């Protein structure tokens, strides 16, 4: 073959300098390696048995051994102020702010608020159905819309409403008494057919001085 026109089918220089095709030696693996593999398999089997939730399709928490034992577990004890604070931080600070001061002219304060420290009857109603229209808080007028947290809105149960109100009534120097879930349940039942937000005049009977 001439160098000027290399034969396209002939081995290329790359082929010419190749090593032979690869092959494997017959070395037997170290026994230490095999032993460590067995230990790993054994440990994995123990893990699987412990964290399988009884292989039950209705168990989603690996700490539970099976539904039988779950039924016997005690219900968690909840600190209402801690729970209420968490609810407040996640739901209320956007408007009422973390320091409870609200936004002047826009969102009313909760700290030292005459509404917060007065009867819980008004507060529970406001949480369940929301509030709209003008209201006077600590002498200043606000005209906004407070969303509902009952069935018209986020559909909070009685304990959540009670906890968040308990929290705000003792925070930032407020001196209101805790609110019980039973109170929320009673008020919810007595206002069951209400389907719109409250206005300040409607709540006047619970909030003297309006």
């Amino acid at each position: 073959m001439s160098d000027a026109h290399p034969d396209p089918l002939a081995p290329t220089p790359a082929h010419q300098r190749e090593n032979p095709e690869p092959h494997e030696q017959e070395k037997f693996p170290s026994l230490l390696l095999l032993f460590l593999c067995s230990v790993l398999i054994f440990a994995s089997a123990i893990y699987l048995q412990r964290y399988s939730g009884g292989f039950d399709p209705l168990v989603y928490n690996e700490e539970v051994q099976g539904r039988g034992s779950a039924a016997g577990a005690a219900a968690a004890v909840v600190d209402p102020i801690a729970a209420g604070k968490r609810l407040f931080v996640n739901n209320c600070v956007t408007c009422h702010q973390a320091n409870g001061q609200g936004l002047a002219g826009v969102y009313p304060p909760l700290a030292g608020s005459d509404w917060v420290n007065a009867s819980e009857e008004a507060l529970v109603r406001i949480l369940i159905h929301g509030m709209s229209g003008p209201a006077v808080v600590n002498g200043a007028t606000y005209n906004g819309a407070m969303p509902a947290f009952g069935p018209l809105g986020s559909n909070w149960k009685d304990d959540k409403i009670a906890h968040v109100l308990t929290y705000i009534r003792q925070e930032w120097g407020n001196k209101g008494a805790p609110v019980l879930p039973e109170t929320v349940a009673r008020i919810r039942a007595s206002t069951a057919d209400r389907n719109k937000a409250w206005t300040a005049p409607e709540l006047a009977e619970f909030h003297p001085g309006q």
Partner: protein
Amino acid sequence: MSSANPSLAASLKPGTSEATAERALLSEIDVSTRRPVFFFLCAAIGWLLVGTVFALIASFKLHNPAFLGQAEWLTFGNIRTAHLNSVVYGWATNAAFAVAIWLMARLSRTQLRHLGILDVAGFFWNLGVAIGLAGILRGDSTSIEWLEFPAYATPLLFVAYALIGIWAIIAFRFRQPGHVYVSQWYLLAALFWFPWLYSIAQLMLVFAPVRGAVQPLVNWWFAHNVLGLWFTPIGLAAIYYFLPKVLGKPIHSYYLSALGFWSLALFYNWAGVHHLIGGPLPAWVLSAGIVASLLMVIPVVTTGINHHLTMLGSFGRLQDSPTLRFIVFGGVSYTLTSLIGSAMAVRSFNELAHFTHFTVAHAHHGLYAFFTMVVFGAIYYMMPRLTGREWPSAPLISVHFWFCAVGITIYVVGLKIGGLLQGWEMIATTADPQTGEVALRVPLFLDIVKHTLPYLVSRSLAGIMITIGHLAFAVHFAWMLLQPRAVAGAQPVRLSPDAALPASRA
């Protein structure tokens, strides 16, 4: 030359050395695979460049969300998806086909038959990918991760794949009798597993969707197995071939190869469920996935030892051989990313790292630092043998290697740190010593976003480096094709011209 195409090997004189005869045979085999392999390589590199552009845009958007924010087709959700699908099904799968075909033919020690099948397959595959990507940018994504191509594109992929699978069975069936080398086990396994995974996933998620929470199980069984049962075996097959080939040494142990292969087949299959830890699924199946992910240490360590003991004593060769450099970088990355992956499945670590940028970094550690770098190494070896030309420029190879290696390292390290920070801030709590009240250390989500921004920026910088490396590679690839055919006795490109070249090299 004669049109009768005489077998070069058969025409050798009696008494020719075995080595020469083998080289002649390999040369014939390579000539026969030339057209389809070259097509798949060109397609792969084209998609690599496309996917890299999508990657840069997506990366910039994460720390600069208004960037190109006016057009719907460029929205992050579309661009990020287009990036993933173009690099997985465009670059990586075309490259996998090229490497698999080339290796299958060589390891079967027989000339390639039925080339037409592969040409048709290549056309349909890339047509499907192009239509699929256009569909994603149009907003037709299925929103099933790793299966986002709309239903009007996927049958093309299926047809293409079926043809390749059929070809592989024929090639294996008509192989020369003798020992089946480890690379071929991996290739056959990959070529068999992928179409089954893809068909089952399409059936159970797109064409006749299963109900409720079974969907994510199918989704992540599929998606993880694309990595573990398609790309990983092809990457390992490549390492098992090129490492001993370039070094001129045997693989350390056949038994380690066998143990590594079967333990991978058994455990990797179950590991995919680790994408769903903490999710709405029975605890037992998640624990099974965790266990499988931990047991993956067995094949990973076994294979790592096998490669390392093969390489021992020859690390000096990394100075001159481009193939070896990329392959070894890839092999080390494989071990590292797999061990980290096993750790990520442990529940307490998962609680921290799940849903964070750490996972994205891990995915790139595997698909880029391992698979892509290995394939780059394979391409540097294959091309001279396919085209009869030599790579013209050692500096361009160095630019390619260093920009990609350093780039992906910055990417992985930076984003993993950022991901860990993000994860820690998302779950960290303090307990009041007096009341026992538990509160978040970083209650505002926007603060977490702010803290991760520097790491997202570092990822973009790494991406720019990687892009430069890819451009160098693509330019070099094209330049090589413009070279005249190499004359007899031509030297290979060497990365360190001063290093003494051993008698056998590549």
